[in-house]
C-alpha cells in the first residue's frame, strides 16, 4: 500500500438530498500535477471543498499525509499545508494587494518567512510589485488570478489546489497561467488542478481524472488520454455539453 500525499477514497458527497459526488477515488503523490477535469456540475469543486473540509462526505474518507481530515475545520486543513485557491478566486477586494499577500502568511509558522515569501511572489509575478498598495478589487482579471495564486503560495503549502484558474481569463493569460503552474511544479509544489480547459490541462498533468455527473468516467496519464479514442469520445461529449 503506497503512501500518497492526498488520498480520496470512495467518497459520496450530498447537498441535502442531491448527490454531487458518487464513489470517487483518486490520489495525489508528491511533486505531481494531478488534474480533475470535467464540465460544470461534474462535482470537481465539490471535491476540492470536501478536501478543504467545507463539506463532509457522507461516505468514504479523505486522508492527507496519512491523517484523516474528517473532523478538521477548514482553517485547520489549511494549517496542515493545503492551500486552496477557490473558484472565483475570492480575494479580499477591499484590501490592498500587499494586505492580501500578508494574510496569506497569517499562520504563525509562515509569518516568520513573510519577507522571503513576498520576494518569491514578486519573482513569480513581477506585476504585483507595482500594484502593492492598490485595492485588490481594482486589478484586472489576469492580475487577480496571479494575486490569488501568490496569496495561496505565501503559506508555503505542501499541496496547492487550484479551482478553475483559467476561468474568465484572456487566452494569452491562460497560456501564461499554465506555464506558471508548470514552473511552480518544477520548483517542488504538488498541484491538484481542477479545470474545464482540457487540452492545456492534460498537457501539463502527470495524471488526470475525467469527471462527469459526480463520478470518475475515465482516468489516465495526461498525454495518453489525449490520444485515447475512448477519451476523445468522452471529451467530445464534454465539448458538446459545454455548448
Amino acid at each position, binding site marked *: 500500500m503506497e503512501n500518497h500525499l492526498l488520498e480520496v477514497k470512495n467518497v459520496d458527497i450530498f447537498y441535502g438530498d442531491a448527490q454531487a459526488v458518487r464513489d470517487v477515488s483518486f490520489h495525489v503523490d508528491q511533486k505531481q500535477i494531478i488534474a480533475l477535469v470535467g464540465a460544470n456540475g461534474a462535482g470537481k469543486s465539490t471535491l476540492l471543498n470536501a478536501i478543504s473540509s467545507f463539506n463532509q462526505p457522507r461516505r468514504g474518507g479523505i486522508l492527507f499525509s496519512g491523517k484523516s481530515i474528517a473532523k478538521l475545520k477548514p*482553517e485547520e486543513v489549511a494549517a496542515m499545508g493545503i492551500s486552496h485557491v*477557490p473558484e*472565483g478566486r475570492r480575494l479580499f477586494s*477591499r*484590501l490592498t494587494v500587499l494586505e492580501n499577500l500578508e494574510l496569506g502568511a*497569517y*499562520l504563525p509558522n509562515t509569518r516568520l518567512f513573510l519577507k522571503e515569501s513576498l520576494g518569491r511572489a514578486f519573482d513569480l509575478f513581477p506585476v504585483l510589485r507595482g500594484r502593492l498598495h492598490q485595492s485588490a478589487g481594482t486589478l484586472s482579471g489576469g492580475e487577480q488570478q496571479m494575486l490569488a495564486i501568490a496569496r495561496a503560495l505565501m503559506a508555503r503549502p505542501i499541496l496547492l489546489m487550484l479551482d478553475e484558474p483559467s476561468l474568465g481569463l484572456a487566452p494569452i493569460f491562460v497560456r501564461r497561467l499554465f506555464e506558471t503552474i508548470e514552473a511552480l511544479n518544477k520548483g517542488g509544489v504538488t498541484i491538484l488542478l481542477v479545470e474545464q480547459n482540457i487540452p492545456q490541462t492534460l498537457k501539463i498533468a502527470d495524471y488526470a481524472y475525467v469527471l462527469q455527473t459526480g463520478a470518475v468516467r475515465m482516468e489516465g496519464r495526461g498525454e495518453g488520454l489525449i490520444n485515447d479514442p475512448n477519451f476523445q469520445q468522452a471529451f467530445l461529449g464534454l465539448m458538446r455539453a459545454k455548448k
Partner: protein
Amino acid sequence: MNGILVGCMYGVAAIGLSLIFGCMEIVFIAQGAVMVLAAYCIYWMFTWTSIDPFLGFLVIIPIFLGFGWVVYTGLFQRVAKAGKNPSLLLAFGLMVLLEHVMSLVWSPNTRTVAASYSASALRLSGIIISFTRLMVSIIALITTGLVFLFLKKTMLGKAVRGVSEDMRAAALLGISPIRVSAATFSIGIALAGIAGVATAITYPFDPYFGFLFSLKALIAVAFGGLGSVEGAFLGGIILGALESLSSYTISAGWADAVAYVTFLIILVMRPKGLLGRSVEKV
C-alpha cells in the same frame, strides 16, 4: 457645537456595532445596554472610590475586553453554527437581561456622575463648550484613531477586515473565523464600554437608556455606511449634529423624530450610507 461632541460618543459605539456586524453579520442590539452597564460601572467606581471618572476610560477597556471575550466564547460561539437568527435572539436576550438586572440591582433611578469640574466650561471663539464634553470628544477621536490603526496596521486587524469581507477565503488561509470574531466582538464591547463611560460623564442615565442608544448607534452606522469604520464615526457626528440642530431650531422633542426621518430617507435613497462599500466578491 455641542451636537458634534455628543455625536462623537455615538460614533464610538457605532464603530463597535459596525465591527461586530462585519464579522458576525448580526446587528448587536445590546450595544446600548452594554454602554449603560459601563456607565454604571463608572458611577459606582466614582461613588465609592472617588477616582476621577476620566481614568475610568482606562479601567473600563480591559474589563470590557474581557467581558466581551467571555460573552462571545460562552454564548455566541456556541450558536454561531446555527445561523444568524439564534445569534440575533441571543443579542436581544442579552439586552433585555442586562436592562432588567441593572434595574433590579441598581434601581431604575437616574444617576449622574458629577466630578468637580463637571460644570466648568470653555469659551472658544464665542461658543461655550462644556469641558467634559470636549474631553470626551477628544477621547472619542483618539479611540477612533486607535481602532483605525489597529485595523490597518496589525495582522489581527487585517484579519478582522478579511473575515468581515469573506469568511471562507479567510478560513482557506488558515485564519480561524471564530477566533477573529471573538476578538472583534470583544473590541466592539470595549468600544461600547468607552461610549458608556462617556455617556455617564455627560448625561444622567438610567437602565433603560440602552435601547435608545443602540438605535442611535445603528442610525450612525447607517449614515456612515456598513463596512466603514470612519463612516460609522462620521455617521455618529452627523447624527449628533442633526439632533442638536433640530433641538435648537425646532424643539428638543423633535430632535429624535428628525433623526429617525433622516435615517429612513438615507435607507431609501442611499442604502450604502455615505462611505459604505457595496459587497463585491472578487
